């Protein structure tokens, strides 16, 4: 691990200001991805700007048909939140199955989506629910936020403050974990909203994506039989040691059916 300077600002504005002054500054949330990467020299920040002491990044609140979760909320807090369970129980369930207890107690919503691991769980929820990512300078639709593996629309130094989720009519998340890492080999988040059915898939490709063919089929009939005969092509899906593209394609169908059953 390379030496770095640690900063501990107490406001979001100060954090952004501090990061702007750094050579290779990175925000440090729960550190569950960034610190392992630093240990392996895969991330070499000159400065870490800790978000731990910034109260304004926390908070879970429902306003009308929107649920807003502060970026610094841990997975455990989201999993245990009565507010989340009441508004989008699938989201609480998703958070409850991220990583392991240690990861859930430290890792945060903001950290997860900023890191944009192609097999992370939250991106599927954000995309399927049509969430907006609120930063220090703008709001970004989930649709245009996840740009590639570990790539997002965030500009240098841009800080995620919260995610804003429209509350769906119903939603469910089904994950098939990779046995070693417990990341999603394939995770499917299914949401039925006033605007229609939205299905987002994580783990299967280089970034989270919406499964158009499945959405169309479920628009016609919102039940498992709608998927009968629907072939999900393996083209473009990740093919590696963990699983073949073919198996991932199969799991997209299987996890969609499982999510439908859970709804």
């Amino acid at each position, binding site marked *: *691990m390379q*030496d770095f300077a640690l900063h501990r600002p107490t406001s979001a504005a100060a954090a952004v200001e501090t990061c702007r002054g750094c050579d290779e500054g990175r925000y440090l949330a729960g550190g569950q991805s960034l610190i392992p990467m630093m240990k*392996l020299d895969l991330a070499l920040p000159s400065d870490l700007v800790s978000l731990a002491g910034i109260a304004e990044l926390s908070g879970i609140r429902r306003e009308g048909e929107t649920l807003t979760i502060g970026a610094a909320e841990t997975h455990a807090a989201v999993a245990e939140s009565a507010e989340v369970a009441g508004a989008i129980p699938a989201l609480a369930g998703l958070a409850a199955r991220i990583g392991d207890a240690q990861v859930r107690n430290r890792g945060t919503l903001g950290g997860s989506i900023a890191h944009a691991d192609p097999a992370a769980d939250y991106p599927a929820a954000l995309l399927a629910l049509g969430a907006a990512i609120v930063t220090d300078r703008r709001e970004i639709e989930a649709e245009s936020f996840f740009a590639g593996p570990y790539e997002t629309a965030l500009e240098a130094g841009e800080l995620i403050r919260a995610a804003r989720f429209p509350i769906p009519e119903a939603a469910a998340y089904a994950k*098939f974990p*990779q*046995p*070693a*890492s417990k990341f999603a080999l394939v995770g499917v988040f299914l949401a039925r909203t006033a605007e229609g059915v939205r299905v987002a898939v994580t783990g299967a490709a280089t970034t989270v994506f919406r499964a158009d063919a499945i959405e169309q089929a479920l628009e016609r009939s919102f039940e498992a039989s709608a998927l009968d005969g629907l072939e999900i092509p393996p083209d473009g899906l990740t093919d590696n*040691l*963990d*699983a*073949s593209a073919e*198996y991932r394609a*199969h*799991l997209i169908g*299987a996890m969609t*059916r499982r999510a439908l059953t859970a709804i």
Partner: protein
Amino acid sequence: MAIGQSVKRKEDARFLTGRGVYTDDINRPGQLHAVIVRSPLPHARIAGIDAGETLAAEGVVAVFTGADMAADGVGSLPCGWLIHNKDGSEMVEPPHPPLVAERVRHVGDQVAVVIAETRAQAKRAAQLLDVDYEDLDAVVSCADATEDGAPLVWDEAPGNTCYDWELGDREATDAAFERAAQVVELDLVNNRLVPNAMEPRAAIGEYDPAGGNYTLTTTSQAPHVVRLLMGAFVLNLPEHKLRVVAPDVGGGFGSKIFHYAEEAIVTWAAGKLARPVKWTAERSESFVSDAHGRDHVSHAELAVDEQGQFLGLRVRTVANMGAYLSTFATSIPTYLYATLLAGCYRTPAIYCEVRSVFTNTVPVDAYRGAGRPEAAYLLERLVDKAARQLGIDRIELRRRNFIPKDAFPYATPVALEYDTGDYEATLDLALSQADWDGFESRREEAAARGKLRGIGASTYVEACGIAPSAVAGALGARAGLYESAVVRVHPTGSVSVLTGSHSHGQGHETTFAQIVADRLGVDIDAVEVVHGDTEIIPFGMGTYGSRSLAVGGSALFKALDKVVAKGKKIAAHMLEAAADDIEFADGQFKVAGTESSVALDEVAFAAYVPHDYPIEELEPGLEETAFYDPANFTFPAGCHICEVEIDPETGAVELVGVTVADDVGRVINPMIVEGQIHGGLAQGIGQALLENCVYDENGQLLTSSFMNYAMPRAADLPSFDVGHHVTPCTHNPLGVKGVGEVGSIGVPPAVINAVLDALAPLGVGDIEMPATPERVWRAIRDARAAG
């Protein structure tokens, strides 16, 4: 507090409160830190090393290469077991220098050591070392290594063959096949594993220029073995100038038996620099430098008659040795594998040939079970396949071929003599505990939920405590295989035990103390068990192969006998009786048939304060040493039953039941025995369902971290139902056999047999370990496609 009781582990208080002292917890004044520069390539010539930038980096004290060690006359890491080829010639035994000078042979091979004031400085400087590699073609798998024209790992090993060995009577076996009504054939891979002890390896070398004394503190299961091998063969240091300490060690599973390069490097460097030098592996380093396990490819054939009697077994195995011969590597696929191919069965003719090959991978050596899991897996898969092929119930087929309990001692056709056992008893116990007969209703209930349920069994036998030394020596072992113990009764009656065994999770500090408490009638808290320091303990062979209780415990028992015998003489003097009339029980020396007695602590006090003492006939003191060389192996055996549910949509296998009935001989501490079985089962289940060490075809290790090497977790395992049936070992004084490895030996075939039982209705006949969801899904899909 004596034998047979579940005494809570004495060592746990310090472990559970973070007061254990592991090698990495130790720091010495003036200590330097070593980082090993490892090869990123599987096979390459080292054209040059430029250490200029590294030496100029902050904090760097030295950079040493293979050339530096060679110039100092440092020798090769020795292999401890010589195997002879079929034609009687010796195996190919290439050099294994601690740092390589000319050619790297696997990813992770040691090229140089960078030593600096801090670990961070050493690490940073190591990244600056400029090594000029000229890439060479690599071979990775057993199949690659044996292909015509395959690149050679060692020029002196044509065909990459280390040895081509055989065991058993080929002609008799061939004749059995000619008589066979049917032949059952099976091709198997025993998947390569990474040991992954919780504590990574570490080593601290120290040199005291005043006396010319060296100390190595290391994560070892066998400190005296390391001292002997490193002192005599590598660094040319006599024993009295070299102390090896293995303090608390956080798990070994075999991987910490061996003498490793880093131990020699830090000891030698400490001498060069006259400062302590410490090295601790990072987990990524462990993956490419701890000896791996298993990695066999086998073809097996079983000849049977119409009634399902086994007539003959023919096995051909290719075993991967990796790039170098690790300390006991050569014995694993030979004398610890082929000798177990009789299993629990009366198969009259067995012939096995093993070709072991070099590849550009990490060396492969003993890993929990070491050869016996490979034998049990092959045999128990083959028996299940035979049952299906013959249309005979798989339990019935086993019963028909079991060695009956009145046939012991039983000489197998593969060089062993089983002293005792009762295979029907453990089978019956396991079947009843697992409710085997009620399985069909559980299968139907699962089917109603859309799940494929299967049940599978294995009936295994294994061999612990390699022995006797004379026989092992005749078979090529270059070491003795006895164990030692000192029992030191202190003046006021407390007791220290100095044992040559080493505890790194097994609970010896408790179990051995129980043996003392039982024999001497002292409180268990009055007994301290000391291990791991060659300056303190007698020469002993260490802990591996489930040998500690059977061999080390027996040495302790012998030493206790000597203590009691001497104590009787002292007591006789004190009680004015004849020594032959003294009886010893419950800590009291008593004149037979009288109430006249004296307690152990009084006898001990008299021994050390010999004012009124038979000094003419008896030396003062109450301390005895014993070395114990067993007459034979011990042979634990048992039956493991697994029940699985498979989700046909995803291929995911859920292990829903594990029931085992083991005969590990007499049990000293049932709780510790159960804990050992649990741990072994977890590792065996890991091999069957999760763990797989994968190299790509070019020799890069793909499963190089816990992100893609799947270790079993608590949530992957059901509660285990553990039962025992005891047939005491006939040739050691405690009647014990060994328990450390039975879990990892017995359970993998039971898991796979259960998976295949679940899938059999679909027409699936084979699946490889680990039975990952994708493999199972493919098997289902392919079977359905084939109709």
